[in-house]
């Protein structure tokens, strides 16, 4: 029983990372109108960037900064690509999906070849290996704790900004109806670019939290996470922010439980099978898609 509890606690930390990733993904979907399959890859590449800085300077602060800056740069660099795709007439969102698949392939290949000779990178355990909290079998490592609290704080900040600032309102307006937003004179293009910036900042922080949680990164990390983020978004309902919250957390918990009771690779499968069952019974997603 304690083991189960331990897995669940673990699961919340992992789940909060998923929630953050899905939130960034949904943000792009709602405001920039793209399926950004490569968003988690940008996060993993940023983890690599922070690792590289850590290796050469041994300064955690600089490494964290590197993660955020590289994430911002990656996301902003991708903006003109997606904007050009979306500006064509007769475009449908598939085009951005295919393009982002291409971006994903490029990044994975770069990580597999050029960085650390393709081997996974590990982040030194700055917390001295001590657990923050021990209760029988339940160990809450510092990494997990920070990932969890960081996740909660970040989600809270994000939703606050979305509901209590002007740009948040503009984002929500564009998400509801891009056409109406254009007609009432909202700065749709500017907001679209801003959403990339926000996704970039978010992505950088996710990279930091993820490094703390996992302690390592690998080229295949991005791949499996990218597929999961897409699946979570579809299961919750494309673009549904609140839905993403619930499904992301649930996935984290389910995966942790599965890893505890099944052989490694089965945990991945379970997640997808469950999501498959959901989307087949309710194709528009558990909480309904927020876009057409």
């Amino acid at each position: 029983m304690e083991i189960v509890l331990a897995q669940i606690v673990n699961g919340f930390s992992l789940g909060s990372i998923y929630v953050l990733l899905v939130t960034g993904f949904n943000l792009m979907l709602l405001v920039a109108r793209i399926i950004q399959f490569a968003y988690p890859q940008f996060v993993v590449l940023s983890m690599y960037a922070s690792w590289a800085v850590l290796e050469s300077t041994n300064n955690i602060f600089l490494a964290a900064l590197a993660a955020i800056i590289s994430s911002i740069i990656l996301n902003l660099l991708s903006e003109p690509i997606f904007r050009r795709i979306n500006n064509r007439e007769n475009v449908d969102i598939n085009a951005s999906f295919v393009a982002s698949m291409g971006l994903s392939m490029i990044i994975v290949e770069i990580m597999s070849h050029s960085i650390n000779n393709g081997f996974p990178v590990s982040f030194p355990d700055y917390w001295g290996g001590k657990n923050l909290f021990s209760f029988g079998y339940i160990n809450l490592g510092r990494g997990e704790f920070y990932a969890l609290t960081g996740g909660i704080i970040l989600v809270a900040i994000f939703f606050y900004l979305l509901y209590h600032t002007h740009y948040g309102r503009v984002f929500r307006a564009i998400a509801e109806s891009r056409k109406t937003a254009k007609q009432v004179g909202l700065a749709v293009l500017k907001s679209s670019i801003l959403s990339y910036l926000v996704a970039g900042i978010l992505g950088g922080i996710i990279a930091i939290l993820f490094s703390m949680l996992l302690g390592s990164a690998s080229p295949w990390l991005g791949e499996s996470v990218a597929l999961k983020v897409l699946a979570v978004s579809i299961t919750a309902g494309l673009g549904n922010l609140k839905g993403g919250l619930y499904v992301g957390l649930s996935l984290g918990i389910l995966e942790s439980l599965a890893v505890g009771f099944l052989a490694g690779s089965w945990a991945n499968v379970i997640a997808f099978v469950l999501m498959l069952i959901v989307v087949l019974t309710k194709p528009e997603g558990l909480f309904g898609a927020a876009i057409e």
Partner: protein
Amino acid sequence: MSITFNYFIGFSFIYILMAWAIYLPYRVKDLHFLTVATMAVTAYFSGVAAVNWGWPFYLVLISGILLGALISYIISFVIGDVPTFTVVIVGITFIFITKTVIENTDYLGGTMGFFAIPAVDNILLIMTGITLVISYFLYMIDNSQLGRAASVIFADKKMAYSLGIKPKRIGRLFQTISGGIAGSAGVLYAYFTGSLFPDFFSFHLVGTLMTIVFIGGYSTMWGIIFSALILGGVPILLPSAVSSWKNLIYGVLLVSVILIKPDGLITKKFLWKIKNKIKGM
């Protein structure tokens, strides 16, 4: 013929077939990634049937095609008329499931691989024959009322409904045929390479096939022949220092084609121009 050149020809055929398997359902906007899982299933089926049960090649081939079609047929009913991205998730899920099952099943060789599938005489000739047959079949579909209906569905699903076209039915039909094509590719792959590794049937293969289909041109079956040869086959001829970067090249090409020429290199318009030029000569 050198071994490498053999491999180039053989793999080109396999990539052509698999790319066609993706192409056909995409005529009605279904990204039918299930085909990769289907290929894995039929490839391993062929291995087991040939090595453990001693089945002759042609029996395995026919069974493989039927098995592939059956898998897609059943799944297509479960899928129904879900939106495009749900179809994507279905495909991805089955790729995961298949891969994980294979990796964890010793009978299938697990991660180490399944070996010693017997060679078949004139396998390249057989591949040529099968590819020609399937190409004829696809050509007939594309130039029939079915093909025209598919184009309408692709352009505007709602309009298709109002014209009395049944997108669900056509979608299921195309998915089933695509499953059969993937089935044939799986069988041929098994006999051609003689050994199977679960790593091959991964999301990477999906990426490769997507690149082939979108560069070649997703609206016709012809461009795919060239892009499969160049993108799928040529890496085999190149030294491994170069070919190990192929996924990067695929990614760059995929992004570029969507940006610059989203309909792909060979489009219906392009074919039309060529047809007219030939008529004019």
